[in-house]
């Protein structure tokens, strides 16, 4: 009786292990497939990334930005950075003491600077 049990258990466990190995095999194949798909989508995302980065750089061409700032000057008043734009700490302090004075300072900086020397 004991031997039958033993043999039965052995056969049973062999089947179970076989099944287990099959499942692992199947799962790993599926996982590998998923990895491949993920890699594919990463790759396509990377490609999009690259294109978008290149487009962004292309849109930020200095000559284009220059034209845009000229076009929208009346609204945005963007000017190239100028040595006058550096303000010392004492200027900031002075600005705080009188609101009008600081506004005047900002105003001058916004309107008083021209593109050409």
């Amino acid at each position, binding site marked *: 009786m004991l031997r039958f049990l033993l043999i039965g258990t052995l056969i049973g466990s062999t089947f179970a292990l076989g099944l287990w190995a099959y499942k692992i095999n199947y799962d790993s194949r599926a996982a590998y497939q998923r*990895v*491949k798909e993920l890699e594919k989508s990463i790759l396509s995302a990377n490609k999009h990334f*690259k294109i978008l980065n290149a487009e962004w750089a292309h849109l930020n061409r200095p000559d284009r930005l220059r034209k845009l700032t000229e076009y929208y000057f009346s609204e945005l008043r963007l000017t190239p*950075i100028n*040595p006058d*734009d550096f303000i010392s700490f004492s200027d900031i302090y002075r600005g705080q003491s009188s609101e009008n004075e600081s506004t005047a300072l900002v105003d001058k900086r916004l309107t008083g600077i021209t593109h050409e020397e």
Partner: protein
Amino acid sequence: MKSSNKVKLFTEHPRTRSRLILFSLMVLAGFSLISGKIAFLASKENKKNISYTEREEIYSRLNIADRNGNILATSLEGASAYIRPDEIQKKSLVAKRLKGIFPDLNEAILLNKLNDGRKFFWLKSIVSPRQEKALLDLGQPGIYFGKREYRFYPYGKLASHVIGYTKVNEFDVNYAEISGISGVERAFENKLAIKNSSKVKNNSIHLSLDLPVQAEVENVLKEWQKRMGAKAGGVVMMNIHNGEIVALASSPDFNANKERGVLGTDRDSSIYFNRVVQGVYEMGSTFKIFSVAQGLEKDLFTLDSLIDTRAFKINSRTIEDKYKFNSESSIYEIIVRSSNVGSAKLALMVGEKGLKEIFSKLGLLEPVRMELREANTTRPILPKNWHDITLATVSYGYGMSVSLLHLAKAYAILGNGGFNIEPTILKKNHNSQSGSRVLKKTTSDEMLKLLEAVVTDQRGTARILGSKYYRIGGKTGTAEKISIEKKGYQKDKVVANFVGLFPIQEPRFVIAAFLDEPENNLLQEPCRYASCTVVPMVKKLIERTGPLMNVIPDNQALMF
């Protein structure tokens, strides 16, 4: 008894025994099979063939970026189009439609290709996404696409000479190998064409260039070249402590996107010539300062020493000045007012050995060592012999030709306290000097004083450079060009240049600029000297780019 017999029967019966062994063996074999398979799976994972991503990106070139990560060159995936004429029925109609998509194609040639019995031909080596869609919309069999990687330069002409360009080497239907032809694309070919770029963490090469500064420099250079009617021009701006080139512009320039990797034959090849790095010119008076530096280095004189500045003869050639000088002038005056006679006298005092020594220390006798191949292959043109007359003329910049990059490097060494530097196009992570000392600190200090005087002294040749924002020092140079037709120099054609250091109280940058055949017609009389052509340009360049590089204006800096 019976039962014990039975037991005996079961275990000791030869047949039962052998069955038992056979069964055990089968179980063992089963287990071995399973464990073998597990081991196989485990080991296969390690030695797995290249993954999908790697396979796809294996030929993708790295990006080229500026110091702040702005992409200057990138690789994008495009398509090439090819045709199998066998599969096309209405050939003349197809030719007409293709002409509609690609206006640059010749319909007759296309039709001929379709009809002459060939099995295959390339329609276009690269088609834009829009053209690709138009081709697909034709719904025409016989038109095929192959994957193509192509190089895209988002900023077009910007820094074109530094970045360089590429060409397609080998190609077939699914693959094209790109390789660099000039500039960074060539110099870093091995790094850029790295395999498996997806595995590289940092997929860009970071250059030392600063995009806004470079853009501003090119803008001002082109504007000024036009204004002065100059044939060509160039500017290089470099950190004098670590040799980083912040901006390098050569005009005229080119748009590498238009080339699509292949050089057009009808184009003017001179646009590809990097005038700053590859062009060697006689520089004129910018050379005068070198014999002074050597004299100070060897304690032959001080800036106050008086030198006889009357015209004199060497081998029947008279050396004289354009402007009137006293019979004796100080070395200070010789440089500030740019006297040829004084400079020649100083060179004779320093001697051949001395002059060669200072030239060698400043790197003027050999190509500039840096990453770009264009620099490594550009040798200065040196005099064949060093007679007295040669020493005299070389001292004021005739008879010896160097590139603008050579000059920038030499002035950087004079201004950075006397340390050797090697210009680089790659971003460095430190700002410290790496080179060894080649000049005394005192020599460098005196040089800075002298160079500032050229700008601040009322008689200085660069006095119009005086900026209300920055303290600048530098030296002008104007050299007549050698006539190709007849022997001698042409009075009306000059190369005007200027090399400056700023901010001079604590120099950070050297700027070297030149214009080829400039003429300032905006003044009462036309003027070709550097003082009225290049110097105003440099002033504008410094005032525009200084703030971009966080150089705090001097008048304000004192308030902090």
